[in-house]
């Protein structure tokens, strides 16, 4: 957390081209965010005027039925897509107005993506998959290798580093993908239905991993239609027709489980 903060603090002050929203501000902020698909009468307002502040260290779940705009919102937040209206601020910097190359550079360093179908390179080993974004971001091969080994250990796959994705289970592949998302110490990890293709046991592994990440102060946004996945977040935002309808803070661990069964109070 502190290393990540200082690393980014330096990077941002060097840039100095945007108003810094200070360390206390949200890591990720959407202001009046809208995205329209199609033209004429067939236009669809996929994201409709979303305002969202995500503080540092928060795990936010965005839920809603398919087609509610949650994936589009995630792509806008991560700079994979550009809004038709509104602003996206990441680490105090406005990113929706950046040029393509600057945006790609920022995305590589500041955003870690986790996809439903893993998006691993089939011909690379687990370790090589994790190293790749670090090498692309300019790390030395040695640093990248070092980082990748530590992360594979952290996701419990130190002994699978030389395996190809095809030699790994779905849950293991997703854990490699999470290690990859973390290799550049991103400001935020954005996960789109990260457990959508996993069975119950593998889902629990991934959710435990996210809980570990949260304990280290990693900011995490996950899009899911599964309420059990959303239940592991600090906060749940429901999306309907591209707009938030509910914003519920969750506080697990208060051990009011007895109350669930009606044996208390």
């Amino acid at each position: 957390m502190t290393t990540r903060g200082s690393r980014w603090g330096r990077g941002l002050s060097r840039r100095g081209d945007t108003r810094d929203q200070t360390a206390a501000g949200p890591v990720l902020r959407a202001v009046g965010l809208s995205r329209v698909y199609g033209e004429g009468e067939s236009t669809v307002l996929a994201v409709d005027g979303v305002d969202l502040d995500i503080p540092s260290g928060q795990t936010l779940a965005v839920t809603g039925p398919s087609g509610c705009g949650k994936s589009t919102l995630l792509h806008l937040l991560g700079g994979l897509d550009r809004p038709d209206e509104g602003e996206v601020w990441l680490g105090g910097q406005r990113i929706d107005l950046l040029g393509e190359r600057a945006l790609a550079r920022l995305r590589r360093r500041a955003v870690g993506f986790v996809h439903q179908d893993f998006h691993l390179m089939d011909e690379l080993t687990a370790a090589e998959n994790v190293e790749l974004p670090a090498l692309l971001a300019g790390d030395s091969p040695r640093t990248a290798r070092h980082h990748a080994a530590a992360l594979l250990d952290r996701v419990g796959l130190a002994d699978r580093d030389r395996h190809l994705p095809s030699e790994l289970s779905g849950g293991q592949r997703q854990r490699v993908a999470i290690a990859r998302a973390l290799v550049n110490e991103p400001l935020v990890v954005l996960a789109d239905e990260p457990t959508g293709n996993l069975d119950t046991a593998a889902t629990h592994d991934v959710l435990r991993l996210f809980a570990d990440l949260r304990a280290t102060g990693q900011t995490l946004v996950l899009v899911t239609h599964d309420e059990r996945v959303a239940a592991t977040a600090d906060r749940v935002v429901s999306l309907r027709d591209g707009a938030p309808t509910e914003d519920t803070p969750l506080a697990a661990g208060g051990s009011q489980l007895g109350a669930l069964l009606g044996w208390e109070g």
Partner: protein
Amino acid sequence: MQDVVLALLVKRPSHGYDLRGRLLAALGPLGETLNAGQVYVALTRLEKTGLVVREREDASARGPRRKVYALTEAGRERVAGWLAEPAGPLAEVAEFHLKLVAAAESGMAEPLALVEARRRELRRSLAEAQHAVLIHDTDSEAGLLLEGVALRLQADLRWLEACERTWSARAPYGEGGENG
């Protein structure tokens, strides 16, 4: 049963036969096991406790005269309390369903607002359960129970999605169903 009968009386004073018909319409096949006498028993008890009064007797075209009951002020307050009170995380589906029906019929609460409040309640409960599921060994007896609780809450939340769709499409009053 008493709460449900009371809630149905908010719309208009009514007799047992009519109340039972409306209850059956709301419950569908699940209402088939409803004993014909249950509504009348509930009405008698409610009258004793002063929540309803016998307003008049209607002569029906054929068959017996029908006692028409009306809510008292105390009865009205009880309905408001019932609609507002959280049902508890593992409450019965049917009771919440009937609350939505009663809320829409009586106009004393907005069905979608009840859905939202219930969703918040269930989400907080599921957060507790899921947190515990991830800590406990799923193979343990405790883990097995937690898994059951979490699955149950997840199912209820999915059903609430359907409730939201249906009641926002109906938009009985208020701002309309444009968000459905």
